[in-house]
C-alpha cells in the first residue's frame, strides 16, 4: 500500500511540475525554486505533514519534501534554541542531502567527460 501511495502522490506532484513547464514560461530552475519554497510554506501551514502521511516517499522525495524538511528543521530548532535555531535549523536538517549533492556532484563532474549533445 505504501508503494502504491508513493507512486500516486509522487506522480501527481510531478504532473503539477509538467503542467507548469508546458503551460507557463517557467524553466527548470524556476520549477525547482518554486517547489522548494511552496514546500516550506505548506509545511509551516501544517498541510504538508498530512501529504507525507498519505504519500510516504512520494511526498518526501520530490523537492517539495526538501522544503518541508527545511521548514520543519527551522521551526524545531527555533523552539529549542530561539533565534539562532531559526537560522540553523533548516540548514542542519537538510545538510546531509546538500552535502551529498555537492560531494557526488563534484566527483562525478571531475571523473566524467561532458557528452556531446
Amino acid at each position, binding site marked *: 500500500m505504501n508503494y502504491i501511495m508513493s507512486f500516486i502522490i509522487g506522480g501527481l506532484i510531478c504532473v503539477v511540475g509538467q503542467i507548469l513547464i508546458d503551460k507557463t514560461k517557467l524553466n527548470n530552475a524556476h520549477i525547482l525554486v518554486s*517547489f522548494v519554497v511552496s514546500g516550506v510554506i505548506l509545511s509551516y501551514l501544517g498541510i504538508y505533514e498530512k501529504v507525507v502521511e498519505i504519500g510516504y516517499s512520494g511526498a518526501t522525495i520530490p523537492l517539495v519534501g*526538501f522544503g518541508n524538511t527545511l521548514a520543519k528543521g527551522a521551526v524545531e530548532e*527555533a523552539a529549542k534554541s530561539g533565534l539562532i535555531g531559526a537560522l540553523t535549523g*533548516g540548514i542542519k536538517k537538510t545538510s546531509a542531502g546538500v552535502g551529498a*549533492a555537492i560531494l557526488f*556532484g563534484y566527483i562525478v563532474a*571531475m571523473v566524467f567527460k561532458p557528452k556531446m549533445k
Partner: protein
Amino acid sequence: MKYNEKKYDKVVKKHTPKNNCFVNSIYAFIFGGTICTIGEIIKNLFMNAGISSEEAGTIVLIILIGTSALLTGLGVYDKIGKVGGAGTIVPITGFANSVVAPALEFKTEGFVLGTAAKLFTIAGPVLVFGYCSSMIVGLLSLIIGG
C-alpha cells in the same frame, strides 16, 4: 515566394514540434511515481534492518542523489529526462542532475571557476530561496508560534 506575417506564423506553427501537455503529464506521472516508489522500497529495506524512519529517509535521499549524479555523468539521466520531463526534474534526483550537468559542461573553464562554480548554477538559487524562506518560517514560529 512572398510571406506576410500571418502566413509566416502558420508556417512556424506547422514546424514547431507539438507540445502535448496531456501525454507529457502521463510520462511525468509514471517516471516521477517510479522514482518515489524506488525510494520507498529502499527506505523499507533499511527500516527492516532496524534503522529509524528518519535516518532511513536521509539514507534514501543520499542514495538517490548519488545514483542520479552517476547516471548524469554517464549521460543516461538526460536521456531518461527527455521522456520523463518533470517526472525526472521534480524529484530530488532532478536536483542532483541540475548540480552535475552544468558542472560537467563547464569543466573546460577550470576546477574552481568551471566545475566548482557551476555546481551551483541551479542549486544556488534553490538553496538561497529554500534557506531564506526556512529562516523566515523559523522566525515566524518564534513570533507567532508554529
